[in-house]
């Protein structure tokens, strides 16, 4: 599989107002490659640099040093910036602040309008994108009539309409209620499974990260863990040391192991956990 995102030795610091004093580095040398079709969660505490990293994947921020390549395009290449943003769409945390139009279907069409897509094709792609996220019946609604989860799905539809190869979601569920979170996660997973779109999900929810194929854990501007969820969550002490919680299931398994019971360390689903505990009783 080809790499869709390649990050080499990425350093970044926000330009400081005071020239003499060097601004603190937010990202301190990140190396990361993401393969096409992967479903990756980037997990980290507030201030770990995970959102800053996400903004580099869409050329909203450019590296202070190092290199970021998305779909073969260097993010520093200003001439190809729209090409890049078309193949790597970005969804933000606050659904209200990324919806441009007062009518759902026109908001989904916004990117296509900007790209100058002809009417017939635009109509088809907008309808498809709305059906994909399950918001087709709401196409003539005003965003203010929708719930947070619905708004976020409209925002996702606006990105899908561009036919991107990759979607970067920067804490898309942070402002939603549990129902909205479920809707959005289900939509993202379906996009990955059915359309083969690469997903980079920035989150601080453990249960969301556990649903991904791979987890990258960040702390203080560095990647500290990078593996499948089972392996990442088995490192309970390391996660706790950087201020992250582990899913309840993992915590239970960890406590059991500490107490000397023989359960496998790599359990992340409730069902596996129940089975492992039942086995103990046998």
């Amino acid at each position, binding site marked *: 599989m080809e790499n869709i995102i390649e990050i080499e030795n990425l350093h970044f610091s926000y330009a400081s107002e005071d020239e003499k004093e060097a601004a603190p580095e937010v990202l301190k040398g990140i190396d990361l490659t993401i393969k096409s079709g992967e479903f990756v969660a980037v997990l980290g505490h507030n201030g770990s640099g995970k959102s800053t990293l996400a903004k580099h994947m869409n050329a909203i921020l450019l590296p202070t040093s190092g290199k970021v390549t998305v779909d073969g395009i260097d993010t520093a290449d200003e001439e190809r910036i*729209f090409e890049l943003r078309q193949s790597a769409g970005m969804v*933000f945390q*606050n659904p209200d602040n*990324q919806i441009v*139009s007062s009518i759902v279907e026109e908001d989904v069409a*916004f990117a296509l*309008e900007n790209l100058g*897509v002809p009417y017939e094709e635009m109509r088809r792609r907008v309808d498809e994108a709305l059906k994909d996220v399950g918001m087709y019946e709401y196409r003539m609604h*005003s965003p203010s009539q929708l719930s947070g989860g619905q708004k976020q799905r409209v925002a996702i539809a606006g990105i899908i309409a561009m036919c991107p190869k990759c979607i970067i979601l920067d804490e898309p569920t942070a402002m939603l209620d549990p129902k909205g979170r479920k809707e959005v996660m289900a939509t993202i997973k379906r996009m990955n499974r059915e359309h083969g779109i690469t997903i980079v999900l920035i989150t601080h929810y453990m249960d969301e990260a556990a649903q991904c194929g791979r987890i990258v854990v960040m702390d203080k501007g560095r990647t500290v863990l990078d593996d499948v969820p089972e392996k990442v969550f088995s490192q309970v002490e390391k996660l706790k040391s950087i201020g992250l919680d582990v899913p309840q299931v993992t915590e239970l398994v960890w406590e059991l192991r500490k107490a000397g019971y023989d359960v496998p360390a790599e359990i992340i689903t409730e069902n596996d956990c129940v089975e492992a505990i039942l086995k103990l009783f046998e």
Partner: protein
Amino acid sequence: MLRDITIGQFFPGNSIIHRLDPRFKIVITLLFIVMLFSGGTLLCLGIGAVYTFTAIFLSRIPLKMFLKSIKPLLPFLIITAMLNLFLVSSGELLWQWKFLKITDEGLNISIFMIIRIVLLIMGSSLLTYTTSPITLTDAIERLLSPLRKLKFPVHELAMMMSIALRFIPTLIEETDKIISAQKARGAEIDTGSFINRARNLVSILVPLFISAFRRADELATAMECRCYNGGSGRTRLRQLKSAPRDYAALAVTILFLAAVIAAGKLLR
């Protein structure tokens, strides 16, 4: 309490007036205003009234709504009528008290002005009642698009207007939240002296502005992420197509305008 504020006051519907091309509706409304002001006789005004009420009837929006639209302008109407009534000194004297005089001509003019303004308000309300604000913005952008050649930022203005419309409900909701939050902290917003209330308004406006700027910043980033690059080379999902009924409506309006002008000129 702020939720009651409606801007543009659009009544969704499917009448013939609703379905007219918004570009034509704007032009027709402008012609309608010309119509009301081009004839100086009661007959002219009568023709204008027939036109207004026919259009209102066709829109299938209750007349009550149009009467409501006059209400906020009532003080203005009364002042206009008073000024005409007392300041016109020509004509036959009808009534006098110290320096106040009413003449028959003054009475005529003030009644005339009231009818004219009422028709004007009702007729132009019809435009906003039957056209959604976003469609209206779109139509204005297209009508003004020739000005782009003169480097007039037509697209940018329309984009600003539509974003403003999009964020009105969001900001109203936010204002409600801030008011509740400040009340919970003991701010007097509904009570206290006028000056105190005005001062407390600052505690609502400052957070509202800060949040609006933050929203603007995030929205700009989100727009860039969706390849927004100004107005050049854009295509539109919303297609405006003029139908025969649009030309028919325009023709009828022009006919009425001609009739008013003729009535003003010939039957003096």
